[in-house]
Each structure stands twice: as C-alpha cells, then as structure tokens.
C-alpha cells in the first residue's frame, strides 16, 4: 500500500514539474561507468536545465555486484549533496531521491528532469559516486576538506568527544 502511494506521489512529482528541459542528454540503454568529471558536468547540466525551482529526481539502483551496506543511499546522498552543499546551487526540497529495484549489470543513478529521463550514471560495483573537485585529497585546502565531508560523511565519522579528565591537585 505504502509502496503504491509512494509510486503515485513520485509520478505526480514527475508530471507536475515544469517541462523546462532545454538540453537533451543522450540516454544510452546500457550505460558504462564514466568518471568524476563526467558526473559533475552532468549534474551541473541537470541543475541548469531543471531551473532554479524545477524538480530533479534521482533514482538509485544497485547493480549485480553491489553488496556494501547503504551503498545506494550513499550514492544518492553524494549526488544530491554535490548540488545542494558543494555548489550551493539549489535547495534540498528541489531534489527527490529514491531507491529503486536492483538491476542487472552496473548499479546506476537515473536522473529525471522535467519528468523525463535525463541521464543514467553507471557505477562500478561497490564504488561510491565520485563527485566534488575530482582531485586527490592531497590537494585539498581547508575548504575542500570540509566540502568533501559533506559529500561523503560516512567516510568521516564524527569522533566522540573525549571526556575531560578531572583536574588533579598537585
């Protein structure tokens, strides 16, 4: 029941978002993994084509070789955070993320803009979605280090605060 309500809501969201698609992306039926530079170029294009208040829908699907826990959620979170936190290009309420059924072959993230399939990222088995500066962490400055944590927060677990030692008398 709840699944059908969710599907209906998703369909409504797709249909009611304005058809602002201005740049058609080529959607191949069996996409191959690309790289970070392509991921961010496509996400920025989707952001542009959706318009500031338009809706972007991201559907994550695990692939045959994906078996890490939370992988789908992590990939979706990184894609959304790239637009909302890294670029500060749009608000979180203009991006809907959802997990779909598992697929054969590579895991994927489907991007919908204006209610239409816009692009499909294929992702190597058990890999996170590479986004951000596309540079090695060695080259990060302080700002990049903080942004990297927003893209991949599970890689940077918060350290528990150390309990203060009670002052000792000398």
């Amino acid at each position, binding site marked *: 029941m709840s699944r059908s309500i969710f599907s209906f809501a998703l369909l409504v969201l797709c249909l009611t978002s304005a058809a602002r698609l201005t*740049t*058609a*992306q*080529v959607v191949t039926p069996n996409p191959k*993994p*690309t*790289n*970070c*530079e*392509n991921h*961010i*170029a*496509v996400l*920025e*294009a989707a*952001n*542009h*084509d959706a318009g500031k208040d338009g809706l972007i829908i991201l559907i994550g699907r695990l692939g045959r070789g994906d078996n890490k826990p939370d992988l789908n959620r992590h990939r979706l979170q990184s894609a959304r955070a790239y637009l909302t936190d890294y*670029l*500060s*290009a749009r608000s979180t309420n203009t991006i809907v993320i959802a997990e779909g059924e598992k697929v054969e072959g590579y895991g994927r993230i489907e991007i919908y803009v204006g209610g239409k399939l816009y692009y499909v990222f294929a*992702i*190597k088995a*058990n*890999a*996170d*979605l*590479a986004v951000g*500066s*596309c*540079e*090695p*962490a*060695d*080259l990060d*400055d302080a*700002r990049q280090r903080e942004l990297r944590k927003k893209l*991949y927060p599970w890689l940077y677990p918060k350290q528990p605060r150390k309990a203060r030692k009670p002052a000792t008398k000398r």
Partner: protein
Amino acid sequence: MSAVRPSPEDSSVDLHGSGGGALTSGSWKMDETVADSAQSTTSESIVTTTPGETTSDPQNPGQTRQPPTDPQCDARIAAIFGGQGAVAATVDEPPGVNAGAARYRYDHLAGQGVFHIYTDANGSDKVTGLFIPPGGRLVSGGEYNNHGDTENYFRFSYTSRPYKGVQISLLHVGGTHGGEVDGQYLGNFHREKNAMGSVRIGNIAGPGGEGEGYNHTHVKVYFNGRLTDPRKVFCK
C-alpha cells in the same frame, strides 16, 4: 593506489619513471627541473585575491558573481599548455565539448583556480601534447584512487620569474606509464617544446579525464600557496 609523495629523505627525482621508479624516489628539494631556463612569455606581476574580495575568488566560490568568459585568455592558456589544436576553458566550456552538458562551469573552473585544456574543440580522442611553462620542478604526483577510479596528477613548482611562487597541479595526464592504469610516471618527451616555449610533459587527457567528447586535462593553479584564478597568472 594512492598518489606517491616524495619523501624529504629521498635525494633524486626520476621524472620519467625509469630506474628506481618515478616519484617513489623523488626529492622534496625539487631537484629535477623540467626545463633548463625559465624563459619569459609573460612578465607581469601576479595579483591574487583574498577571501571574499572580488568576483572571482577561488577560495570563496559561493560568494561569486558570474564573471564573463575571456576567449582571448583561454586561447593564450591553450597556447601555453597545449599542442596543436588544443583548446582551454576557464569559465565556459567550448560548445563542441561534452555535447549537451552545461557550458558555464565557473564553479568547477576559474572559481576553483582551475582551467581545463582539451585535445581539440570537440574533446576528441586523439593525441595532443600537454606542455608546461619552462622552469617547473616536479614536486609530487602519480596515481590516486577517486572513489574506485584510478586517476593521476602531477604537481610542479616555479621558483623563478616569470612564474615565481606559482604551483600547478595537472590532473588526468596522458602519455604516462606504470602503476595500475599506466598513470604513475610521466613519459619522456625529450624536452619537446611548443610554439610558446613550453616543455612537453605528456598528452592531454589521461586517467580520469577521458570520455566521449570530453578528453581533457584539469589544471589547478596556486600562487604563493593560494588557489588563484588562472587568468590572473597567465593572462596579465
């Protein structure tokens, strides 16, 4: 897998990976110079910005306005860093590159102290030389893991005019060898120079910069340790 940084104890750099293995035997003292002399192609001083100061501060891209692209400067950067047919971008990517994607990329390019240089106006899969101004010394580099993808970078430092204080990190460098994806060590191009007198270090587009219609190298520019809009360094 991760990039190898030369240790301070090492005493020599093998720029091309022969012998003891490129950067694993590198030098913290930067004792391998890519070119013999720092011949001046530009002579002006380099102006950097402080956070929040101007419209093009790479340290604070969130505070920027949209700056216009500068085709003349892009052409100059392409001439300095590229071989025949290379095209560069600091704000807008060329219309023939990565068809269908957004042209305006300031936040990924000049806004982060970066420019892209493509094999040609269409980012074709072809061999186009990648050059750097003479006088650069290899500081660090090699392959690194970008969330499951093996990519590469090489960082050079300048200590003499006209680029004194400048560092450049070139990512996705082709014409390399060794490592997991042949990206660990720079190739040997026998100090080949382009029309601007720059020295060849490889090919445009290597690991992480390959893609249909999007073959490019990503170049990050620092001045005195700060990310700097490449136009302020190479077009003043």
